[in-house]
């Protein structure tokens, strides 16, 4: 039985449709990340699951029970806010024990549960401090502790790491992942940062404009994106796109104003009843090499220490991002080689990936 | 659904309770003399404009037939109220906003103490300073002058407007002026062009409170004025008829007196809604 089920969920704010009939099914113990740009409806969806927002239509089920109109406090879920939302007038201990007081547990029971969580998170030294005396990383842990102490059915997290400095975010990502491996609690996590999603998720739900674009494992959304939006959104930098036009001859394709190339890998495209396609290839799979088929000029380079990311302009103005792990720095005119096995192809009009069974070679 | 019906009934009852006195006064202003005292109270009656005619000295011969006596001084007194309340509100808003800005943006020595001192002027029941003010005004020849009441109301409202406006101005991040400063504006220009437009809702809310306070003020208007500068509240209360207190005319006076403030509040309603909930700027 699924832990959480979202059925045809729809939410509109006046004329604005925030969430348009989405369906989700989440298994016990899964870490599901709802990923999408600002305004795509991910936070609204999470808040509806929590009960902080009422759906306009559709239903939500937790462990088979319909909770759509149930008050948030009765759903047995915990919510971690982006801004932590710690009670400023209470100590860390009181903040964490607060949810349990509402459940009328006895004092010794409360203490045992709080100390359990506190030891697990490694925040014992902070117990008597007030939130304003804590660093943001510690505040984040206290917010987590407050959620964990209730042992809820589901954890809901709304961009919990975005209020942290870049370095802290990286550390907390690993900690959250490690935490999940140890507790194995069902978690629904919302973010706009695809690195967080790739790093922590068992399943990624990509959303845009109120609609689910794709549901899959990190590897699936990375290697087999359903459409151009997903292909571009996942990966940093996102996938490169090159419009191709079939010349009609052999496997010769045209790109840019007057460039042509041909490759056996493209032969399947000639059998499709269309002339225009979009080639998608990730920066990691494009290489600067003298045996490359495409010409380009390097316009800028981003040195990241362990790799260099080049912005290469192709004839016709298209920009390709190229990742290079080698230490030497390139510049000027270069030739690009594509790892054809990793290329994706999309139809031009509806931007969907062309799936084909004979992807051999 | 049932819950909503009960909610509706409760609200209707509450509204009726609060609006009943207002309805009664307005109704009374249109009632003939016997109807005013009728028992059981009359909610439906034959209306008359006699009370208003008496108030504004229209067709006094007709009015006299019904036992109203004497020329009404309502209109000049009403105009006094308009001038005094209006000018004093304008002054307390202007001075209050500028003061609040100084407290909000600059480091003022003893800020906490000063602000408390300003607020403390509101803690005094006005009656306590009634006689001292009378003596003071007599010495300064401010008795029965419009300027006397204007200064008084301005002073009393100043504390309120400083505190309210400081709250509103604090909500506006100082980065707004700073952006203007870096872009080539003086602080005064930045204040006028960038801060004031955003503080409008706060100003509207403060203006409404100051105006209502000055408009309805009774005690000092009574003791510090007599003829020339008397405002409406004391005069309405003293309207006499041939057989004692003229309730009908008083009711018409009160009803008419209500109109300007209600109109003003409706005019600034757009700004008021935002202003009354503080936290105007989301950033």
């Amino acid at each position, binding site marked *: 039985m699924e832990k959480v089920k979202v059925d045809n969920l729809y939410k509109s704010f006046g004329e604005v449709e925030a969430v348009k009939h989405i369906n989700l099914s989440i298994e016990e113990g899964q870490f599901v990340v709802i990923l999408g740009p600002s305004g795509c409806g991910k936070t609204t969806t999470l808040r509806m699951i929590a009960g902080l927002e009422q759906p306009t239509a559709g239903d939500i089920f937790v462990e088979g029970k319909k909770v759509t109109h149930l008050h948030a406090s009765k759903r047995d879920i915990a919510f971690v806010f982006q801004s932590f939302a710690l009670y400023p007038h209470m100590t860390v201990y009181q903040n964490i024990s607060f949810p349990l007081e509402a459940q009328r547990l006895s004092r010794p029971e409360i203490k045992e549960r709080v100390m359990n969580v506190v030891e697990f998170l490694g925040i014992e030294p902070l117990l008597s401090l007030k939130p304003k005396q804590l660093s943001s990383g510690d505040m984040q842990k206290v917010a987590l502790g407050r959620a964990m102490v209730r042992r809820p059915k589901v954890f809901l997290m709304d961009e919990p790491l975005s209020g942290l*400095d870049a370095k802290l975010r*990286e550390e907390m990502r690993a900690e959250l*992942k490690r935490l999940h491996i140890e507790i194995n609690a069902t978690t629904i996590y919302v973010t706009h940062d*695809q690195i967080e999603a*790739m790093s922590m998720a068992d399943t990624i739900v990509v959303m845009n404009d109120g609609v689910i674009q794709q549901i899959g494992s*990190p590897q699936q959304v990375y290697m087999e994106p359903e459409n151009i939006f997903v292909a571009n959104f996942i990966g940093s930098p996102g996938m490169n796109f090159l419009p191709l036009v079939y010349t009609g001859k052999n496997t010769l394709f045209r790109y840019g104003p007057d460039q042509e190339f041909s490759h056996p890998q493209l032969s399947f495209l000639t059998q499709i009843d269309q002339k225009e396609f979009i080639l998608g290839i990730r920066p990691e799979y494009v290489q600067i090499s003298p045996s490359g088929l495409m010409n380009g000029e390097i*316009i800028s380079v981003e*040195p990241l220490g362990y790799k260099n990311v080049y912005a290469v302009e192709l004839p016709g103005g298209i920009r390709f991002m190229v990742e290079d792990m080698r230490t030497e720095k390139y510049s000027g005119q270069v030739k690009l080689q594509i790892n054809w096995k990793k290329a994706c192809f999309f139809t031009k009009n509806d931007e969907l990936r062309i799936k084909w069974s004979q992807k051999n070679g | 659904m049932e819950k909503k019906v009960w909610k509706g009934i409760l609200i209707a009852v509450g509204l009726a309770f609060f609006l009943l006195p207002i309805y009664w006064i307005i109704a009374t202003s249109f009632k003939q003399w016997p109807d005013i005292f009728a028992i059981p109270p009359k909610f439906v009656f034959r209306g008359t404009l006699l009370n208003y005619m008496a108030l504004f000295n229209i067709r006094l011969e007709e009015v006299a037939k019904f036992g109203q006596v004497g020329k009404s001084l309502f209109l000049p007194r009403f105009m006094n109220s308009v001038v005094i309340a209006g000018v004093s509100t304008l002054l307390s808003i202007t001075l209050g906003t500028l003061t609040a800005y100084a407290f909000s943006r600059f480091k003022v020595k003893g800020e906490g103490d000063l602000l408390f001192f300003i607020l403390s002027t509101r803690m005094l029941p006005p009656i306590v300073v009634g006689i001292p003010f009378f003596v003071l005004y007599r010495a300064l020849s401010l008795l029965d002058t419009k300027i006397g009441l204007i200064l008084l109301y301005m002073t009393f409202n100043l504390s309120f407007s400083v505190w309210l406006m400081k709250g509103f101005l604090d909500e506006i991040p100082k980065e707004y002026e*700073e952006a203007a400063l*870096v872009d080539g504006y003086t602080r005064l220009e930045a204040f006028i062009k960038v801060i004031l437009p955003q503080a409008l809702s706060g100003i509207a809310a403060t203006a409404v409170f100051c105006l209502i306070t000055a408009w309805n003020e009774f005690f000092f208007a009574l003791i510090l004025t007599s003829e020339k500068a008397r405002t409406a509240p004391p005069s309405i209360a003293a309207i006499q008829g041939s057989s004692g207190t003229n309730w009908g005319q008083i009711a018409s006076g009160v009803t008419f007196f209500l109109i300007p403030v209600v109109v003003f509040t409706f005019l600034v309603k757009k700004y008021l809604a935002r202003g009354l909930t503080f936290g105007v700027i989301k950033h």
Partner: protein
Amino acid sequence: MADVRLENIVKYFGRLCALREMSLQVRDGEFLILLGPTGAGKTTTLRIVSGLEIPDRGEIYINKQSMKGVQPRDRNCAFVFQTYVLYPHMSVYDNIAFPLRSKVWKMDENDIAQRIDRITSILKITHLLKRKPATLSGGEQQRVALGRAMVREPQLFLMDEPLSNLDAKLREGMRVELKSIHKKLGATFFFVTHDHVEAMTLGDRIAVLNQGSIIQVGAPEEIYSYPSSLFVAKFVGNPEINLIKCEVDNNSLQLKNIGVSFPITLFPQLKNKNLPQQILLGLRPEEIILTPRGSMKGEIYLVEDLGVDKIIRVKMNGMVLRIRIACEEYFHVGETVMLDVDTTKAKFFDPITEKSLER
């Protein structure tokens, strides 16, 4: 010409010392990043350069002229705030035109229109001119704020973490655009951030600031490969550099945390140096190699699969090492792996002074 020179700036806020004798030079036309954690004093530095804040001690020079007593509006620099600070009661057009309508400029409305047209085309916001800021998305507001800064064609741009309120994807796109705008304008960009990836990708040079003092200034590769102190080594680089306690013993280096030792000749960077007995060995995640021919054994503790890039945490002798590898294989928690070390890239630090031993 717009170079900036800060000399021995000291700034207190009450008893808190925000800047301690801080000195920095921003070269004319460069894109300089001031990088540091929250509370390091970066915003304070920027505000002092702009004139919004006066230092307690020290001198500021813009174009070799002292800025003592010079008001912000006379310094000819543009400030881009983290929160954009767009005037909500004005349209986008009026927001961008605002600086040009001040008494300092008094520009003709036709000239203003021309300039705005040019700038909004570069920033691709021409279609937004009549809208009010509240109706724009974060990315659009960001560009309008940039437009308002650019419209004065200043020589010096001061930017206070302008990208941190943007979505991750938008941030990536804006980084490329900012770089090209910088190239196009040729102006000096003084950019502040806490994000080391942003610093590496955008800056011509990076100045690392911590607790009010400049720790190191240099090109991105220099900061990354030759950090002058432990702080810089840890702050720049993702995931964080691995630091292993070592003991120098005759001809070998004992890596105490992971129970391995290497002959000291494998580390040419230590040749002919006077070494304390205890030193810290710093290895960046990409400098530890997962290879079946490796000499060290460890157990996989955590795997972050980011596509081709993978970040793997391996436990060795109780210490967790962070490793970065680009490959197609899958790794699983609990798996045993063999590791090797790129000894030529290793960095060494004195654990007491926290300074690099190689400089």
